[in-house]
């Protein structure tokens, strides 16, 4: 059973890691942050699977912290862009 859960974790990790391509390609900065956001959620899922697979309840706390801070990159990005210029800076390259 644990093997199956770990395999699922590896699958989810590989999947969201491919999303890094969007980080490199953009074209807008919002797209790049999206890749990090997906990685955050995927990472939380991986931690949950690992926690149950290895019967380590403390790992759930890491998942909890990750879930709490998952939105920080998006929030920091939105607030930095919002406060920079009321018209909204063009972020296409």
């Amino acid at each position: 059973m644990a093997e199956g859960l770990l395999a699922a974790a590896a699958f989810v990790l590989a999947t969201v890691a491919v999303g890094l391509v969007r980080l490199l390609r953009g074209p807008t900065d919002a797209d790049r942050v999206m890749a990090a956001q997906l990685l955050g959620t995927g990472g939380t899922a991986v931690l949950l699977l690992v926690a149950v697979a290895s019967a380590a309840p403390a790992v759930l706390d890491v998942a909890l912290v990750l879930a709490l801070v998952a939105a920080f990159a998006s929030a920091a990005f939105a607030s930095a862009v919002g406060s920079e210029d009321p018209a909204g800076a063009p972020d296409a390259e």
Partner: protein
Amino acid sequence: MSAGLALDAGIVALLLCAAGAAVAARSAFAGVVGFLAYGLALALAWVRLAAVDVALTEAAVSALTGVLLLGAAVRLRASEAAVAAERPSRGLRLAAALLCSAVAAGLAAVVLAFADPAPSLAPDAARRLPATGLDNPVTAALLSWRAVDTLLEKVVLLAGLLAVWSLAHDRAWGGRPGPPPRATRDGALALLARLLPPIGIVTGVYLVWTAADHPGGAFPGSTLLAAMWVLARMAGAVDAPAVGDPRLRAALVAGPLAFFAVGFAGYAWADGFLAYPAGWAKPLIVAIEIPMTISVAAALALLVAGPPVRAPSR
């Protein structure tokens, strides 16, 4: 290959890709986002290396680092084109790449040559753990066996904060960091800033409290507390305190002071600096941890806020 090893290989591959993106991406902003992805992968790696305490710290700190670096990347965006012209020539880059490869080869050789069986303090730690009354050896290391390190780190934290504050204009000295708060017009940000902090504060306190016996700790706990304040500030719900405020100063030094007090008391009731009398280790450690959490949270939050820019009100 077992599924666990496949997962580990995936994490290492993700670490390398994210680090590559952080270093080689086109813009500084993209590089910073790559670094955030890297921090996330690092938290997973720590879990797989059976270092849950470290994973908690990494996950919490990466939130603050993200706010700091993303904000700087957005503010410095206009300056990027001019700096890009300073890129070293192709030959220099090649030379740097060769040297870095040599460093990697050296480190890899060291890793492959690690002694077997590995030298370890784990047996010592396991033997001495009962004397501290704690169940989590990492907390015991941080607050008992290597407590001097932790104390010095508190001092470094305060010194770093002072250095940041010293960048202020003379007229802003003692004033508040950052522009005055403006309630965000973004409903989603306002919602986050209202809903997350209560949960984050409870989780942070829980991490401090549980650290005696389970993975957790004053560092991830206080980092989480600081992060929640930073979030509320991003939404314009709270203002940064004036750096000259005596209450703020008291909160900042409470932790180190308690630490020093217990440390010097060690001369009187035990056999030296930061020595705990038998049977008293756990209550003393908790007595240090609570003010320390407040001080660390305040210092981390203000490090993110930056130097004061608004003159103090008279």
